[in-house]
């Protein structure tokens, strides 16, 4: 008999789901040992907490920020910036041009097994369009995987991006679609700029296990206050001392896209 006694009259399915949702929201209440479903939630969260025990920072930060926000709910907001158009499309065009060049020098015969960095690949594509040879997203994914296996990451990413952009939606199904889109997503992300200093900061946080301290809390609280720009908060003093104005935001720098090696 189930020990989900807190949910009489429910079907087994509903009872299980409700026990799980209750455990997720911390509403579980059992007299005896918890059911395995609840136990899994509690065990996993215990594992999570072992890795990142709360440091009490949030309460201080939010108290400071809330005091500021309460002071003037109509504070001017920072202007959002829109990401500049990705150069992915441009690079896909460049890739397509190189494929066209490959077609011009291609032969016939082994084309169906050709990879994008091989001369026969263009012919492979042409044959597929005519219904000769294997094709579709799954073959493109296989080519991406093979390129990755050969260590030609740059070309693999570009090939995945080009394929996702050009393959009909009906072929975007299953494993091939997931594989291509995952790789294309990486390509797109790595083509974007990183704010100066952020990469170093992240590296520092990773190596120092992200240890928070009072100084960080104060810095965050000040920055929230400054970014919302409503002046000194009224009411009870915030337990964060005021500090000097934040320095101007650093400029963005663009990390150039990796240039494929001659054999890549």
């Amino acid at each position, binding site marked *: 008999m189930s020990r989900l006694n807190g949910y009489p009259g429910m079907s087994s399915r509903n009872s299980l789901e409700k026990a799980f949702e209750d455990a*997720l929201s911390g509403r579980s209440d059992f007299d005896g040992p918890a059911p*395995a479903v609840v136990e899994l939630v509690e065990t996993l969260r215990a594992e999570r907490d072992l890795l*990142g025990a709360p440091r009490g920072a949030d309460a201080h930060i939010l108290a400071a920020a809330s005091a500021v926000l309460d002071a003037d*709910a109509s504070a001017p907001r920072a202007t959002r910036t829109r990401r500049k158009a990705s150069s992915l499309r441009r690079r896909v065009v460049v890739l397509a041009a190189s494929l066209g060049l490959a077609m011009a020098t291609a032969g016939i015969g082994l084309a169906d097994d050709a990879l994008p960095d091989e001369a026969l690949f263009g012919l492979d594509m042409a044959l597929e369009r005519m219904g000769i040879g294997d094709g579709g997203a799954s073959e493109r994914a296989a080519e991406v995987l093979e390129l990755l*296996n050969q260590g030609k990451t740059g070309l693999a990413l570009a090939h995945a991006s080009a394929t996702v952009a050009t393959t009909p939606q009906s072929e975007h199904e299953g494993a091939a679609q997931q594989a291509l889109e995952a790789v294309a997503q990486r390509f797109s992300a790595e083509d974007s700029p990183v704010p100066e200093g952020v990469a170093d*900061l992240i590296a520092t946080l990773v190596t120092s296990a992200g240890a*928070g301290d009072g100084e960080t809390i104060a810095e965050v609280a000040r920055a929230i206050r400054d970014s919302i720009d409503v002046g000194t908060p009224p009411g009870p003093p915030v337990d964060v001392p005021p500090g000097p104005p934040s320095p101007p*935001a650093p400029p963005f720098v663009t990390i150039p896209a990796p240039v494929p090696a001659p054999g890549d």
Partner: protein
Amino acid sequence: MTNEVFDSILDAARTGADWAWRKFYEDLAPRLNSYLRLRGAEDPEGLVGEVFLEAARAISSFEGDERGFRSWLFTMAHSRLIDERRRRTRRKTAPADLSDLAHVADDQDVEGEVLRHLASERLTQLFSVLTPDQRDVLTLRIIADLSVAETAAVLGKSAGSVKVLQHRGLRRLKQLEQKGVTK
């Protein structure tokens, strides 16, 4: 965190403010680290760093609230995890199969590896009755506090598939309990 506070931190992060990135890192790195470790990552800390670097590159394109931001980072983490599993699988068995790219979660060796490194024997016991996909779903829902829809987005599955995986996983846990394999 209120929406206004989150938005102001997000705006600052877009300008490259150290404090904003530190705040995001301190809030989310433990969860990401837990998820990656529990799902078999060889170098969870390194992957967390990669996730934040990727987020820093793409932050200007992000639109959404705090939950959306969390879901966004977990999507990146899951993608990195799959990449790492694929690299590991390739090292072990060459040539790799196409399924390695999209379904490396099925790699039982990877699962066995993580289970052996888990501190909790009880968790090992509970995980042992779940399939890799069920573990993905339940771990994301529990560790990351993601909804069914958010979990589906992270895993690239439909919400219906996630519901089915979740229910089957819960049912297996209940069967484990009924067999008397309880603490």
